[in-house]
């Protein structure tokens, strides 16, 4: 086991990880269970987190890579009890059905609203192409991301 020193959701944290372990499994083991496991190969997007302002598949990165970096998981969005605007929009638009893919979509959506502020619906759909949902047909997820953008982005 090695020590991985990261900032997770604003807190300096030391994660214990084997050199071969992926970031998703280490985050999950440390209680960040919003980071879901839908596959192991970057095929579904359920494990999407934000690392240093980039949305990434945490299953495809070695945990050690996160050393010295800043990680935001879904748990970090509702810090302090009040939820983020994008979470509110997911509730309002009915964007979560079974909810399993939802954490990944919200993290990707947060990245989109912060980094592609004037994206069209087509561009939003393209940006969401790395996240799979089997319940919704995406319409309400796209609506939620667009609505968040129109109301001024995150928070």
């Amino acid at each position, binding site marked *: 086991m090695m020590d991985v020193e990261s900032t997770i959701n604003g807190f300096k944290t030391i994660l214990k990880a084997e050199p071969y372990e992926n970031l998703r499994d280490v985050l999950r083991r440390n209680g960040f269970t919003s980071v879901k496991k839908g596959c192991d190969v970057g095929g579904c997007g359920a494990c999407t987190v934000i690392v240093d302002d980039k949305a990434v598949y945490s299953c495809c990165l070695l945990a050690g890579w996160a050393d010295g970096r800043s990680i935001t998981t879904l748990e970090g969005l*509702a810090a302090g009890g009040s939820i983020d605007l994008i979470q509110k929009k997911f509730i309002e638009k009915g964007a979560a059905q079974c909810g399993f893919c939802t954490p990944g979509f919200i993290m990707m959506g947060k990245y989109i609203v912060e980094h592609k502020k004037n994206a069209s619906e087509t561009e939003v759909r393209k940006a969401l192409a790395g996240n799979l949902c089997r319940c919704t047909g995406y319409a309400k997820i796209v609506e939620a991301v667009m609505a968040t953008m129109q109301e001024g982005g995150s928070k």
Partner: protein
Amino acid sequence: MSQVAVEKVTEVAVGKRLPKIDARAKVTGEAEYGLDIHLPGQLVGKILRSPFQHARILKVNTAKARALPGVRAVITGEDIPVRYTFNFAEFEDGRTTPPEAAGGESALRGLMPPPRADKHPLARGKVRFVGDEIAAVAAVDEDTAIRALSLIEVEYDPLPAVTEIDEALKPKAPLVHDEIKDNLAAHLHGTWGDFDGALKESDHVFEDSFSTQHQHQACMETHGCICKWDSEGNLTMWAGVQTPHTIRLELSKVLDMPESKIRLISKYVGGAFGSKNELEPFMIICSQLARASRAPVSLILSREEEFMATGCRHPYRVTVRTGLKKTGEIMAREVKILVDKGAYMCQGAAVAFFAICYPSASLYKPKAVRFDAKIIYTNKQPPSAYRGFGNPQASFAIESQMDMIAERLGLDPVKFRLLNANRPGDITAHGFKMPQSTALTECIERAVDAIGWYEKKQHPIPNRGLGLACLIHSTGERGAYGNIEGSSCTLKVNDDGSVTIFAGTQDLGTGAWTVLAQICADSLGVKFEEIRVVAGDTDLPAFDLGAYASRSTFTGGNAVRIAASKMKEDIFSLASELLHLPASDLDISSSVVYSKSRPETKVTLREVAKYAYYGAGKPKNLITVGVYDTPSTLIDPRTGMWKEPGPSIAYTFACHAAEVEVNPETGRVKVINLVAAHDVGKVINPTTAEGQIEGAALHGLGLALWEDMRIEKGVTLVKDFRDYFILRAPDMPPVKVIFVEKNDPNGPFGAKGIAEAALVPVAPAIANAVADAIKARVTSLPLTPEKVLNTLK
């Protein structure tokens, strides 16, 4: 059979786009799924699976695996008694599958062999498909468990495999199950009405054949469970499933222990679509690993295992023969189905029977019907239930043929369907009575209108095409388990005046619990925000058969209405003591009880509750139970038909219309527009109802265009989402949802089911649109560019 008190109530919550009651848990990541559960001392379970399609197991040596530090249990087929052999249809006391219900001197007698258990949780003697379970381990962590699997030595004697149905039916074919001499798992055949007479009266008879592929549910959460035994021999299982009570029933039979000693907890389910509604081998295996290791064991399937060894849709080969009058009136329909069953029966017979009873025998009400379905064992992974339950395969055949017939006879496909459309009060050849809410005609008219059918037909664009397809489906299905189509709940007004519904109903992400709360709010006159739903646990004071057959809103909702109606009486009785007014003068709205004659005289529900629990001076509480069973019927064993209304009380209808563009160079199909008009009765929550249709469209489009598990020579080639393409956000065309709200007299506030129905018409509507675009017909799904291009040439 129970009657729902029909009373006039104001609709405040019903019909509104209210947020789902579990939405906050889902958007914050608080919702706990199977893989998120971690109990103290929990071990990791893993399964060793067969690399062969068909092989005798000569020896399984587990000594090295057992010796590995960190391994706590290793089990093989020899460690699990023979009586643990199971099958979905085995439990005659808990379940009546069609032939059992028919039984005796039935016209359907001999329809299929008696149900037989054909699946042992861990293979004994031989393996029958690539992925068949052989042995399992429990270890302190995943790495150790995987290493232990690699140390298990299995000696196989490979046998010739039979992986295609044509081969399986040949006289000297290898036998998947040695005792089944013709590989015929089941053979369903029969006739309803005077088939030969109806054929004689027909002016035209057409016969066409179609085929469909293996499609996987591909839930975002893979299958899995956690098992824990206590020292008194009670088993607790956490598993995201559709049917906690009936899976427990099956598990209790297999483990030979009382149902009440098993507690199944299923709070959040990461997608199901039919794949999580029956007992699975991994559940039994996990329970045995937990017993052997005397520790909680978590057994979660990998994505690769999910694709190679769970569920999926049965591939069908369907031949439809239809007899019609010159006018286009449908007289007779014969359907022959060949089902690739894979290695084990699962729900194969029930799925085929549904395909026969619904689209084949009911859509456009042929006067007589003949059917013949052969369910054939092969050395492949076994398909089972998948949203639509046989209806998508058969509807693809029937609705494709409708357009082929229209073209041959020069009929307008819209008018041809309208002429034959089911209408309220119609009775089918096998005795299904169409409800008063039947609105197929309106669905066709509105779908055609919304897609701009006739304008576009007048101004055709090259390479573009229009197609439509209709649907009949059930709301609930009597006969799936015993003689019941019911649900129950317990309602409690808490001492602060808020309300808790303890529901048997499962919510797979559909919004069923939200819908129950909305129904409760308006039935009881309380605020929606003050209602909580506690469900997904067999230890709760509630029962339900499960979330399948599009039944939850209807049966669960009616149970809530009944409980609420009783609750109102109790509330008014207590409030009348507080207000010194007769109970008959009282009503309740927004959690306030008031006098109808003098509305300013009122008392809050909170005050009534406080009085009930602390001040009435006599034992009193505010707890009621609602039990509902639909007035549906079982098949009549003497006639082989149903007495009215048949297995469902509220059949649902739909018409989908699609516009596509086909690239003549590549054969690629682009869906421009999809319109889905559904007769759903009263819509309780438009947002969740739309979500069902939009989500079903994704599965339907996948079935139509892309999805294929590519099982070649018995080997499932897809392993993850890089091989198995489900539609992504940019791939989805706009889906226009139209609700034709014709209230059903038996539904809660007039509602009917929706979940499965919306998937079914998509593929045939797309296929018909493609045929219109390329002026040629592809008769097998999916409509890949290759097939389209070959048909064009």
